[in-house]
């Protein structure tokens, strides 16, 4: 399968990339890892007339803790997250998630920025970022702006990144105190998109009372979903079995999966309930360590 023809530029600075996006207008697209975009272009679901490859722009790839945030550069590849020491030590949710994303070759190229900017509720990082309460930094002609993850996903393949802008950084409130996070998705086979996936983040005080909670759901609603009622029942609670069961129940009620080859609605709701319970428990046990 061959994509429709297009012009290709590989600028070496962010300013140049943004200028090119403005020059070419609506038909220009950013090329990051290309592992969502190129397949779509081959199928001719997307036919941009200009591709702006941002792989040659230095300084967009890093994982670091700074100013109370875990900061991830937009062009950081899945494999770099998988191999990052900070991630191993404190943010195990990414170890859970990256392992379930596609396969090693795809993870050598797919970027975290691209995974969010693609705006697909089937991707795994959106739910993770919802659970972790991330902010997204977007850079345009007039400088940088920051968008909270809850305002980032706006529709099918539509995000807060406007034309002429580049997603540059993902910022996650740094892990502190008794903090744990976990992700799992049910998939039919390796590399498949989620039948249903759940991301959980739990923070507790020394008495075991929940002070912060985040629950994000993958591929069970048109947009990546925050399970707000589940979070509310967890926060302030003693995280008893009954509370966790209630949170799982709410998540399964509040999502709106559609029937497809991966399963029917009832099955997917059931999965959400089971995985929510397991991920909350996993996050709690990690928070206790």
């Amino acid at each position: 399968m061959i994509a429709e023809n297009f012009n290709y530029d590989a600028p070496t600075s962010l300013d140049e990339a943004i200028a090119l996006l403005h020059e070419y207008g609506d038909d220009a697209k950013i090329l990051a890892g290309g592992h969502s975009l190129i397949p779509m272009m081959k199928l001719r679901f997307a036919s941009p007339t200009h591709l702006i490859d941002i792989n040659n722009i230095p300084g967009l790839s890093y994982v670091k803790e700074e100013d109370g945030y875990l900061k991830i550069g937009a062009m950081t590849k899945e494999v770099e997250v998988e191999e990052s020491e900070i991630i191993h030590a404190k943010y195990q949710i990414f170890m859970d998630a990256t392992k379930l994303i596609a396969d090693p070759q795809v993870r050598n190229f797919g970027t975290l920025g691209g995974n969010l900017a693609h705006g697909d509720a089937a991707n795994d990082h959106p739910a993770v970022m919802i659970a972790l309460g991330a902010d997204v930094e977007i850079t345009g002609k007039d400088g940088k702006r920051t968008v909270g993850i809850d305002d980032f996903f706006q529709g099918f393949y539509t995000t807060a990144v406007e034309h002429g802008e580049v997603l540059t950084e993902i910022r996650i409130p740094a892990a502190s105190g008794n903090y744990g996070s976990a992700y799992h998705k049910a998939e039919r086979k390796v590399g498949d998109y989620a039948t249903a996936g759940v991301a959980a983040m739990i923070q507790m005080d020394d008495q075991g009372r929940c002070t912060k909670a985040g629950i994000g759901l993958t591929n069970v609603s048109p947009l990546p979903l925050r399970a707000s009622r589940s979070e509310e029942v967890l926060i302030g609670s003693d995280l008893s079995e009954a509370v966790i069961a209630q949170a799982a129940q709410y998540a399964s009620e509040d999502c709106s999966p559609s029937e497809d080859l991966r399963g029917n609605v009832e099955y997917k709701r059931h999965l959400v309930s089971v995985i929510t319970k397991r991920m909350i428990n996993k996050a709690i046990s990690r928070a206790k360590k």
Partner: protein
Amino acid sequence: MTKKITLKINGAEHTMEVEPRMLLIHAIRENASLTGSHIGCDTSSCGACTVLIDGKSAKSCTILAVQAQGKEIATVEGLATAEGLHPIQEGFHLNHALHCGFCTPGLMMRAVELLEKNPNPTEDEIRWGISGNLCRCTGYNNIVSAIQWTSAKMQGKELPSTEPKFV
């Protein structure tokens, strides 16, 4: 709208005039006439087109030829040297790790990166590491044995038996 690019494949430079939409696998097979890397699915799923780009295994059906400009590309044709087969080729050969051979070039290139990063992988790590490569013939067990054998060989350890195992 063509672009002139130079691809460095297995150490040799190939200069070509390509449309930006040309996929790397096509440039390798058609322009550089290196047909060892295969096209199985053309949808980023099977791994038959796996090559190394600056040492990283890549599905070359999902990468544009223009993106590989200036990078070091390695394909199956570059594995053997004048001295003989690469240990991974020897491993596949001795362990009967192929039947039709269609998946083999991609699997070997993937295994090369896997062993480079993790010289002594467990069976689970091997199975996980080749999860982006499909083989419709072997059932994978002999491929796993081949990679275990190669791991031992490359580290100068005692070599496991290559007798067929019936499972």
